[in-house]
């Protein structure tokens, strides 16, 4: 699953991003997104953090939710807008915003906050800020849905992951001057902001995590 690092290369070519991601992850990311999107229902309000070309946002919109996707990359957003227009989806909007601009959102205004391959791009301060804000803007009973890269807990798996990652990190670094930091202790961080983790699903190499957390009622 270390191929997620290569995502950065693709990001510099937004138009080929989706096809590339599908090939690199052999469809597993798509499946993860499908599973996560099932937690979003018709008529609900959903926010996609770092929506990119809209993979998660569009899935939620197809299910009838009112979706807002935010991302800092204007080119990716443009593709997301095109895709929504193609499908005739009127219940999704895309806004150029970063996670640090979440304070502009109303408290308890979303039924779901989703994030695919975005949290691993944040610094520790940004990640904590994003999670705190998420807890604030979620309605009681609302869900946080995350699919992202993570660091394995045992050192053996870390070494294996590190070896697989190293050449990819180097190539990505050379081509796009970017890298990602695999998330550490995501469930703990999520719990720390007052959300309760409902489900965590990890890839065989423990390098990819799917997480569902809920804001307690009342």
């Amino acid at each position, binding site marked *: 699953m270390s191929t997620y690092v290569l995502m950065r290369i693709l990001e510099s070519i937004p*138009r080929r991003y989706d096809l590339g991601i599908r090939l690199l992850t052999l469809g597993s990311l798509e499946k993860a997104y499908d599973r996560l999107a099932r937690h979003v229902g018709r008529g609900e309000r959903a926010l996609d953090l770092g929506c990119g070309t809209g993979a998660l946002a569009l899935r939620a919109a197809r299910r009838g939710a009112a979706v807002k996707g935010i991302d800092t990359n204007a080119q990716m957003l443009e593709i997301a807008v*095109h895709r929504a227009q193609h499908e005739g989806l009127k219940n999704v909007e895309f806004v150029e915003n970063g996670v640090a*601009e979440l304070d502009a959102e109303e408290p308890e205004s979303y039924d779901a906050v989703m994030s695919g391959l975005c949290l691993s791009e944040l610094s520790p301060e940004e990640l904590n800020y994003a999670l705190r804000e998420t807890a604030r803007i979620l309605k009681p009973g609302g869900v946080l849905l995350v699919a992202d890269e993570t660091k394995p807990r045992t050192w053996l798996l870390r070494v294996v992951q590190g070896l697989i990652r190293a050449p990819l990190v180097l190539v990505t670094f050379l081509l796009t*001057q970017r890298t990602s930091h695999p998330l550490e202790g995501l469930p703990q961080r999520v719990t720390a902001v007052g959300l309760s983790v409902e489900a965590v699903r990890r890839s065989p190499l423990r390098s990819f995590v799917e997480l569902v957390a809920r804001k307690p009622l009342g």
Partner: protein
Amino acid sequence: MKQIVFAWINVLQTLLRVLPFPCRTGLRRIGNPTRDSPVLLTCNFRLTVERVQRALEGVDCYLLVANSRGVNVWCAATGGLLTNHDVISVLKTSGIETLVDHRQLILPQLAATGIEGNVVVNKTGWKVLWGPIDARAIPAFLEGGLRKTVAMRTVTFPWPQRLEMAVAWAFPISVVAGLLILPFWRRAIPSLVGLIWGMSLLMFLGFPLYRRYLRTRSSNVGFVFFDFGQWGLALLLWSSFVVGVASVAFATGSFSWPLIVRWALVSLVMTVVLSIDLTGSTPVYKSDLHKDRLLQIVLDTQRCKGVALCEQVCPTNVFAVDHHRHLAALASPERCVQCGACLVQCPFDALSFQDPKGDQITPAIVRRFKLNLLGHRLEKQPKPVRRADESGQAT
């Protein structure tokens, strides 16, 4: 100890200068800052952060390190790696808002190509001020009532910087060339490495001598990477080297045609490799690889209100602003390096670029589409939306 670490980082990062080197983002206290101390921002390129911290010794202030993906300020801002979002993010998540009473942020001037001052103000309430280009001028800037002298806002290419660029190119190129030649011509490696370092040093340290002969305005970009001016330089370097080798070989009695031909070929390749992006390695020219170097800056005097932000952010002092008549003028447009900072910052969209075909490139396009590695603004014109029934399939 501090000195040794600083020296070590400088050496290591100069050798690997062409690669990004990220460091921790967030807030750093310099000296003993109070609630009124200035707040400065820089990128998270390790070398830059070290140098800024050193320049700020003796000053009490806060330094925000924004996420530029480990790339230096100018490249990151122009390439879309240091944007409004990164500035807003560090302002909101670093905790600085609880530490100071004022809301004034000093940004590096060279970040003006990518960070829109008015967006930061609107989204955060922080007023943006463009500081000096060189961090070493910050103490004087702070003491001088936050006013920039012409020298503080003009880029130069003095010899320490030229030496740095020579090393930054010579090291990776000599490593790669050495590895390539290792399997079949091992004996030649020391000479080859010497050749690369010598030529690189010659090229950059000698820059002021030949710079007036560089022609950077021809339009054949994309076909050959460098125009005649630099080809001339490359040929000059190469031929003088070949003559040198031949005469040394002749003098020592080891002259043979295959030897001369072999070295001539190797050195030709190295000269071309080294001079491919010569202008892009200087702060006083746009990269030859970038089409943007052919753009002309255009000022619409009808829109200009003379707020002089252009003058504040221009790194080559192109503008002259009449502060009584509230009007800017393009005093020296030939100095323009097409960085786009003035377009991005002008609140009245009075500035734009014109390409050689006469088409206008608006500030909106420059703000939205940053330069990628090859210097193309990713998409200059938004593509018209195709309806599903016309195209027949989804993209």
